[in-house]
């Protein structure tokens, strides 16, 4: 497909929300009518199947597709409630011994012929798993949290994405806590975007419902949840599709006199 977009979802640091974003974005894009496939490139520690609730339906994986022991459509797992979404599961961790960047390019190439969006869930780290995944990507979403370690690792990844000619690269800031930001006990949104110098694709508030949805294997975007994170993921999908949706302002999430004083304290004076 000529207009197909292959997007790498990466962070450097583990545990900041790559797989959750991939699952929710996949469901949201599919829900908006785009034919979407999510590719688990984390062969060592695969989890995308679990977050999508598809762990019991895997027969073949990317491994068999590459070995040509099955056809691509046999390996693709279609989501029952969201038929526009398919998962291509990661193969056995032993695949890492022989998997090459060209193999990932082959798989992504096959998928881009059939889907509007190919979302690649990148493994943590910047070693071989990352190098394989980045080879297949045209554009990227870097996800980070407002913590020094996550921002530092995101910076390393952005440098590598630039080296590999991946463009555009956009930023998602996850686990934002408006109250801590108001107290200046969490890096502000502007701090992170200034440091990383990337356009902001979305802000996701810290939200307990994410854990609940992970427990169930039903991404928040699946059932039209009204929780803050569900809305944020939906907005990210819409912005990817080119819709102009204003970004949420964490400061506006809090009202009242105390919030006003806190906002005053954040005023930049020089």
């Amino acid at each position, binding site marked *: 497909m000529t207009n197909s977009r292959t997007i790498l979802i990466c962070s450097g640091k583990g545990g900041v929300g790559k797989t959750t974003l991939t699952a929710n974005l996949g469901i949201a894009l599919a829900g908006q009518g785009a034919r979407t496939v999510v590719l688990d490139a984390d062969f060592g520690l695969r989890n995308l199947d679990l977050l999508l609730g598809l762990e019991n339906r895997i027969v073949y994986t990317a491994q068999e597709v590459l070995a040509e022991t099955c056809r691509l459509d046999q390996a693709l797992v279609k989501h029952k409630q969201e038929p526009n979404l398919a998962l291509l599961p990661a193969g056995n961790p032993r695949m890492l011994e022989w998997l090459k960047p060209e193999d990932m390019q082959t798989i992504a190439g096959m998928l881009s012929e059939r889907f509007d969006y190919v979302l690649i869930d990148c493994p943590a780290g910047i070693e071989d798993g990352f190098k394989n995944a980045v080879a297949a990507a045209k554009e990227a979403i870097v996800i980070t949290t407002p*913590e*020094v370690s996550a*921002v*530092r690792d995101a*910076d*390393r990844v*952005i*440098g590598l994405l630039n080296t590999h000619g991946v463009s555009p690269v956009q930023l998602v800031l996850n686990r934002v806590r408006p109250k801590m*930001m108001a*107290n*200046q*006990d*969490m*890096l*502000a949104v502007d*701090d992170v975007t*200034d*440091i*990383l*110098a990337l356009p902001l694709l979305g802000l996701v508030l810290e939200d307990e419902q994410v854990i609940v949805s992970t427990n169930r294997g039903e991404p928040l975007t699946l059932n039209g949840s009204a929780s803050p994170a569900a809305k944020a993921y939906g907005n990210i999908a819409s912005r990817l599709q080119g819709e102009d949706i204003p970004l949420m302002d964490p400061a506006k999430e809090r009202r009242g006199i105390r919030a006003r004083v806190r906002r*005053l*304290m*954040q*005023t*930049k*004076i*020089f």
Partner: protein
Amino acid sequence: MTLRDLLDKILRRQPASATTARERLQLVLAHDRSDLSPETLDQMRREIFEVVAKYVDIDLEEGDVSLETEDRVTALVANLPIRRSMAASSNE
């Protein structure tokens, strides 16, 4: 600097942790991006001091060569206070 940062300074309170986080990040990223080890940077700093010291009398105690970063561009910033120029001292 925010209003809170100013109040913290006046009241000599510990700065807000977000301010500390931002400053620490900017420093560590400058090093990450330039790919210079602290030892290499230290050696470069000493060599720069030596070269500059040939022409002007600099205050080594106050002098500083460091990496600063803004908008993904890292710069080497040298701040070398001059006591007096060598030319002036040789004319004395």
